[in-house]
């Protein structure tokens, strides 16, 4: 099965200062980056966002869920084939739109 990592951004406000999930994940599944890059000033910490980028590497150990101080992380698992089907459909849509 493959992880679906949902992060509630109304709860996860300052991930770069908190960084608990980034630090604890044994599979380095998470990344945290700016959603905007400004010229001439530092990106505001509130513009940083955690994403479960490498969710295909998630073992499901649950350490991130346990360590999150705001309970912002939700972990669900889908069958690989179910997810594969979803992404194949996305790709088919992408190809159709390209050929229009």
């Amino acid at each position, binding site marked *: 099965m493959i992880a679906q990592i949902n992060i509630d951004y109304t709860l996860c406000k300052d991930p770069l200062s*908190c960084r608990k999930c980034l630090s604890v994940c044994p599979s380095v599944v998470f990344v945290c980056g700016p959603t*905007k*890059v400004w010229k*001439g000033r530092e990106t505001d910490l509130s513009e940083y966002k955690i994403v479960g980028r*490498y969710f295909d590497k998630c073992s499901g150990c649950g350490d991130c869920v346990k360590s999150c101080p705001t309970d912002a992380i939700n972990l669900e698992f889908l069958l690989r084939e179910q997810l594969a089907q979803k*992404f194949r459909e996305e790709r088919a849509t992408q190809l159709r739109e390209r050929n229009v």
Partner: protein
Amino acid sequence: MCWVCEQYGNGEKWYLNPENYARRLYKVRKEGKESTGSDADPQAAGMGAGVVAELVKARISGDLVWEEEIKREALEQAYKTHFGQVVTLDEYLQILDIAYPLAKMTCGCRRVQRGMPDEENFTCMGIGPGMYKWERWPETYRGGVEFITPEEAKQWALMNHKEGRVQTVDVFGTPYIGGLCQCEYPGCVAVRNRIDYDFKFLLKGHTVAKVDREKCTGCKSCLGRCQFKALNLEVYTNKAYVDMDQCFGCGLCVTACPINAIELLDRESMPGLAENW
């Protein structure tokens, strides 16, 4: 010589060619929306964001054509702007004699993937005229810079090599070289994406490690040195095994061997590996 050398090497390895550190290459002004205000990244969260998100989907779907298309398009862009290559310790030290100024700065990968706080994260080296800009505007470039002397830089490079970090050159606007990294799997985004998704943003180096099976005593000193999953011990023959196809030529295993049983060979001297970048 790799394809970058052919284009930018001027007869030698491209990262030993002083022209590629030259001021005039820094910095090609961006056009369009990137020239003003903010760069929005709807995919969120730094460093190859969109590409890797798509690659993970393609991998899961099992659609190889899709995966190849993502890579081809992303790399075509990357090779024109921003990519890296593994270098040996000797080459790294030579670069420290070519490039100036040298400055320690915060590592973007360790921030993005591990949330390393700036004050603990001066683990990357920026080089060349770009560093004056980083010094001038620390609010834009998190943490600013710490300028160091070539001698300090060499000592630091030796320490990093000893501690098992892979050393790479990084391009910012091909062929301008602006960074010297000390990378590891999986904390380095470039190494991670290359090893886990075969995304060739990071090129292999110009050398390959080869075990001399006559000499190797199976002492295990080299084990754990490889960041590229190319090294293990053949337990029953009691010899180190380097997967030369997978080897990036960083030389970390070579310097760990107490009896010089691992040799660093020129990649191009081996026909079977000569085009394996």
